[in-house]
């Protein structure tokens, strides 16, 4: 009996008919999984880690203090920070040169976590394709520009810092001890 049923199934191609029914269902469903990429772009999740960018405060001053903790945290050694003291405010440092080599970057976001002043952020920029590899070695200006584009809402500069500037300004006039004067 069972063999008879199997024979009938084989003769009438029941397995193939089942498969044909399945593919026909998909034809009628008109469901599309693929995306027409350059025309349609998918919405990226909030935690997406794209190219690392620099942020600014609301008064257009950059946040980075040049501490180079990002350089220390970077697992692929793609960040180079050259820190210097600011001319106008003593004991205040900034990144004189900041180089991010996107060709080496693994987009892990460790630098963002390491930053003590929240100067770095992961943008949603992923279309970095270029014919010149040198375009991918970004300096601070390029990173700030990208940051302006992706983070238009800026954090307020902490209020107390203005008092500190004033304090240092008065101290500088009265021979502040850390001002290097022939010190080693």
């Amino acid at each position, binding site marked *: 009996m069972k063999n008879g049923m199997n024979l009938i199934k084989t003769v009438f191609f029941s397995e*193939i008919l089942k*498969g*044909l029914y*399945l*593919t*026909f269902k*998909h*034809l009628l*469903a*008109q*469901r*599309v*999984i*693929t995306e*027409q990429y350059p025309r349609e772009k998918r919405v990226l999740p909030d935690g997406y880690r794209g190219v690392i960018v620099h942020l600014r405060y609301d008064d257009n001053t950059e946040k980075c203090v040049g501490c180079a903790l990002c350089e220390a945290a970077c697992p692929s050694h793609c960040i180079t920070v050259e820190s210097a003291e600011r001319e106008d405010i003593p004991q205040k440092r900034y990144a004189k040169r900041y180089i991010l080599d996107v060709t080496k970057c693994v987009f892990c976001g460790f630098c963002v976590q390491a930053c003590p002043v929240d100067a770095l952020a992961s943008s949603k920029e992923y279309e970095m394709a270029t014919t010149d590899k040198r375009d991918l070695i970004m300096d601070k200006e390029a990173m700030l520009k990208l940051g302006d584009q992706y983070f238009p809402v800026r954090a307020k500069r902490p209020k107390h810092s203005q008092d500190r500037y004033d304090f240092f300004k008065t101290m500088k006039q009265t021979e502040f001890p850390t001002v290097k004067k022939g010190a080693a």
Partner: protein
Amino acid sequence: MDLAIRIGIVLAEIAAVLGVVLTHVAYLTYMERKILSDMQDRLGPMEVGPHGLLQPLADGLKLFFKEDIIPTGANKIIFSAAPILVLIPALIGFAVVPFGRDSLVIGEFEITPYITDINVGILYILAFSSLGAYGVLLGGWASNSKYSLLGGLRSAAQVISYELPLGLSLVGPILLSGSLSMVTMTEAQGGGFWHWYVITQPIAFVIYMICAIAETNRLPFDLPEAESELVAGFFTEYSGMRFSFFFLAEYANMILVSCIAVVAFLGGWQAPFSFMEFVPPIVWFLAKVYFLLFFYIWLRATVPRLRFDQLMAFGWKVMLPLSLVNVLLTSIVKYFLNQM
């Protein structure tokens, strides 16, 4: 003068049929890609023209301007001749296919809906379609590549084993209509779909469909060009126009076997019911051919490729005995019907 006009009419008919067939071949690739992608939840070609409608044109242009490479060690003459040897038999079969019913009469000249009606039409098509296997085999051999050679050998084995049941399955309609001519065969199936030979010869129809797929090297019988095993089979080494000749031949063969199936089993240009005869016969013919082509693509999206020993076993142990039994039964029934 009279002869010149007659020759001119025939030439114009040949040009028209060739033009229509080649356009269909181009857009069959588009149809195949679109249907396949729909069945696989994709979009398919979308870039060139609205919904990718100009894609076949772009593909053709690309193939036309590509460099023509003849590999070192290849036999140049046979290598160049093989694609033509495949393409010509695929196109030449359309000469006897009746596309419609009514002839166009202008003065004393008659433009028939077929190029010629020879009284051995089906035999002629079968003879030429087996000639195409030589092109495949020679192309595979002349390429001086192991993939091509394996593809060619497989193709030869496959075509030989499936041509027998293919021919035998067509014996049924030939016996019933009592003619080898495609035109007479179509006319014998007039007056409703229950006169079509797909009703009286269902086994022959199924055998014919399976063998036709095997003959045209389509999935699930695309072993000669199995891309996961043989790169591209017999045309691995071909490029540019020669490659496109093989490509054209494959799709032209698809259309040709569909046309034969329509003429031999689905009543050709006949309408399924007599009250539906207000629709032009050529529309019925095209609708049936399109349905069969759709079925081929549908099958390609569904069924995986057979193993080679399965293919051979199926061809020799199932298809051949079945078609022989079918021929025997049909002749007996036909004999007793004639006695009555």
